[in-house]
């Protein structure tokens, strides 16, 4: 559940970025480049977050304090 919520937040970021680029008034080809940049940024960041989130959902090892 939390994973999908987080994914939704990243999707919202992507939508924001898409909007900013779309209404930036740059030429079409530049917009395409910027869409690619925004998209790949969001994908990279989402992947990183998702991997770390998923890996902690059901931890097989537990934090054992040093003492």
């Amino acid at each position, binding site marked *: 559940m*939390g994973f999908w919520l987080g994914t939704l937040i990243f999707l919202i970021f992507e939508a924001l970025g898409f909007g900013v680029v779309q209404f930036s008034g740059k030429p079409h080809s530049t917009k395409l480049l910027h869409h690619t940049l925004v998209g*790949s940024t969001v994908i990279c960041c989402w*992947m990183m977050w998702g*991997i770390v989130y998923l890996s902690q*959902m059901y931890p097989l*090892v537990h*934090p054992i304090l*040093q003492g």
Partner: protein
Amino acid sequence: MELFRSEEMQLCQLMIPAEAAHDTVAALGEVGMLQFKDLNADRTAFQRTYANQIKRCDEMARQLRFFTAEVEKAGIPVAPRLSSEQGALDFDGLEAKLAQLEGELLELNGNSDRLHRSHNELLELQLVLERAASFFEDARSSADRAQRESATAAYSDSAVTPDIGAPLLESAQAFEPKAVQLGFVAGTIPVEKLAPFERLLFRATRGNMFLKFTPVGSVADPATGERQEKAVFVVFFAGERARQKILKICEAFSANRYPFPDDLSRQRQMNAEVNGRLRELHTTLEAGDRLREGVLQAIALNLDAWSVQVRREKGIYHTLNKLSVDVTRKVLVAEAWVPVAAKVRVQDALRTAAARAASPVGTVFQPMITYEPPPTYHQTAKQTAAFQDIVDAYGIARYREANPAVFTIISFPFLFAVMFGDIGHGLLMLMFALVLVLRERQMAKQDLGDILGMMFGGRYIILLMSLFSIYTGLIYNEMFSVVTTLFGTTRFACATNHKLTDAVAIQMKPELCPSAFTTGLDMTTPGSPFVFGVDPAWHGTRTELQFLNSVKMKMSILMGVVQMNAGIILSFFNQRYFSDMLSTVCEFIPQMIFLNALFGYLCILIVMKWATGSTADLYHTLIYMFLSPGDVDCGGACPENQLFAGQAQVQVFLLLVAFVAVPWMLLPKPLILKKRHEKRTQQAAAGHSRAAAQTSGAHAGGGHGDGHGEEFEFGEVMVHQMIHTIEFVLGAVSNTASYLRLWALSLAHSQARPWPPARLRRRRRRRRLPRAGPRSSAGLRRRGLRSSTRPFFVFACATLGVLMVMESLSAFLHALRLHWVEFQNKFYHGDGYQFTPFSFETLEPL
């Protein structure tokens, strides 16, 4: 998409009327969008039409360099170019002007050198007159004294005076009746040569001489004009032969001799003369220097404009030399690559140039048909240029193939940051990048040196790297290797008492929760972990490394497989663009199948394992997928390895398709190419024109052996395909393994802790221990603390610096490799050549 494919190019022919050629090429250089082909490649530089003009340009460049050196020596600032319009002089005018100025300057220099030399000579002469006169004065007075003494102590032993100068003169007076003429030579000599000089004189005259000298400090040498430590000397000798010898020795030691009259009155007269001439020379010299400075200042004012003009002229004539001259000598023919988008600008420039030259015919500008591969031209902005450079350093893209730089802009800094994840280090780097970016106007004009210049060139890369490092630092939850709690509190608590979440509190009072030290803390909310990044509870625990290892290793594989898939998909874009359906079917599809059947499946298993909390051993699963297909749970011995129903069947299927994909990659493509070739040759034999095939193929050029009229060697194509296949199959394994460097470097980065407060605390605690002992005192404790803190601070700063530089460098290199090898070898040919237009802006300095 901008930057995704290189600009469309066209080969154009220009027919330029000979009388307007120079101005037309100048106008084209202003536009800077044409890459001229060398049509005289078979001729040497001397045989070309405009070799003479280039020689003249070189001569002018030499003169300008001479002026620059002179102006710099005089310490006059060179005025920057006042306006963009080049000086009012034309080529011949400039040449004449430069030659005249050079002659003038050379004459002035010669005069000034001569005057300086005689000035220095006079100065030395003055010194010699003063010092040598004082020798004689001393000698005379001591001789008088000795005479008086000898008169009183009539030839007693005490006549031997301590002054070594006196007896010689005395004896000379004493034996005056003898016919021996005592002569002397006076002059100056560098101090360091004095000792060998004296030794040689002594030997040459068999000791029959006397050298008297006195150092006079630093004096300008007349011959070289440099200041030297010198001494004035006088050599006394007897006889004409000794004189000849001594003169020769003086010459050999470059000792300057000066006339020195015996007579005291003549000495005085000479001294006065010298003084007068020195005064005169001084005023002459000053006037000369003023004149020279005036000339140099006039030169400095125009120097920049002139060098720009000469540089342009040279560029123009070099370009003109690439043009072929029509037999009638009325038209120059040029062939040049031009971006299609810039054609309008070129045509405008040609029109205005023709109008200005007022020649009866304008330049003809028409496209040509060619089978040559066009140059690659990516139009970059200042932000994207550095990323394009990263890709170009590996290889220039083939004409209009997909440009990896588009994706590198984000994925490169991201992969860097995976290895360099730390908020604090990211912030430091961000500050550095911001300094470079915000001050780029000023810094672009300065000469920054090698290393800083390189960093300045990559300032936007550094900026993105730092931003991503901050992001990954947030994910890793590390700030200077210290844990943060920016995103709430931990989801772990004591297994027996869920209210106890503070690890420090438990560590202080271990009796509250003994299980935390044996079985560990318990997750309070399974399935709903720490919202963003690594849970702070892991920090400093015994199992931290175990956990991070597992996560980072799997993360590397996931990211690697995603990036490699992206690379293969890009190869599909290339194939579609070049309408190479054969490669799509015979390369792209089996490649996707092979990679994803093995490593894509592994990624799915990893995610499933995480999402379900299964304890399956993925190593085991993957290895036994090959060793005993169809058996997932070791025949019932390890049921936890079964992640989903029907896993055994799925694995068998995946294994089968992966095996099928290998011959699929290898065999069909060369065979089909061979069949196509046979068909074509049959058609040609049947008398069909090949023009149709050529025009359809002019756009593509992809696919092996698709060339025009090229020999089709089946063996070669087959070997090529075999290499490709083997490379891909082995690469799928080795490249995936290569992505594990992400894990290794990020682990190394987080382990190299320059600022470990935990360790410091531990050390303090250990130091505090002896306080309980009987011998400890407050002073000892304080001294111990201070002595531990200061070196520690120095050590911390040093390691931080090393960490920032070395770690970022190594992370940079590894990210570079991952892009060049693992990503780009999936689709990037990189065998194109760079578009290098003739442009006034990129002319090399003189």
